[in-house]
């Protein structure tokens, strides 16, 4: 079983990297971009076969290591 974790900055936390990407896209002629937020995608392979148990385990991983609760939030998807 595989879990996909998206870690992103909380709304309101300044993202200078996302801003730099937005400016670069504008420079390349991509118009109409009103915002870019950059995050991380982490894929975890698990021996667990029960989706609910897998999700609970991955959420515990997020809370203890994968995300920094001061500035980040996360989404877990079991695929």
């Amino acid at each position, binding site marked *: 079983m595989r879990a996909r974790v998206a870690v992103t900055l909380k709304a309101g*936390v*300044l993202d*200078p*990297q996302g801003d*730099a990407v937005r400016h670069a896209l504008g420079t390349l002629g991509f118009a109409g971009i009103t915002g870019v937020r950059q995050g991380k995608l982490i894929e975890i392979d698990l021996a667990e076969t029960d989706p609910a148990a897998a999700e609970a385990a991955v959420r515990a991983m997020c809370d*203890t*290591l*994968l995300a*920094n609760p*001061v*500035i980040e939030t996360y989404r877990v998807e079991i695929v």
Partner: protein
Amino acid sequence: MRAGVIVFPGSNCDRDLAMALHRASGRPADMVWHKATALPAGLDLVALPGGFSFGDYLRCGAIAARAPIMRAVVDFAAAGGHVLGICNGFQVLIEAGLLPGALMRNAGLTFVCRDVHLRVETAASAFTAGYQAGAVLRVPVAHHDGNYVAGAETLATLRAEDRVAFRYAAPDGTTAPGANPNGAQDDIAGILSTNRRILGMMPHPERRADPALGRPDGATLFASLAQALVAA
């Protein structure tokens, strides 16, 4: 003062820090590998050095903060021990939950490696007792992720409890936008814990602790510690 320096894979200021502590206290620091599960007995200070522990993977300091030795460091801090974290060491202390807030990518997105000026904001700690509040130091920074961020409530608490140890400043001690190398909120360069026994700071006092490297503005920090912890 008996000091221990924690060494992680990727630490690169551990020897400098050990030299500065040795010079100030007259005794060599114990070097403690991150895989140890206990600190040497009788330490007065645990120091976490600068560097790029674990390659800055995931988030700066995040993996190091979960290394085996950190349980012992957290226990040491909880028992009232003095802990100093410089640069990556500051990032580790924040990731370990020993200091509040977060250290984000520098506002200018570039790695900043240059001398900055710091204003000493409080002399009320074992780390800063040898300085006058308001004194201006010149010490280097060398980091990519030193942009201190905290919620409004945390910032208000830090200010109200006089826990901002150092702010980035101009040479005359005034705060000015150009003096802040990384965009840190409120120009914060270093903060103290509630019990004032944990200091985390981005600049490198250990790189200005030897007179051969310029005016030794950083040496006072280590001398202050040695004096405060001499009887301990």
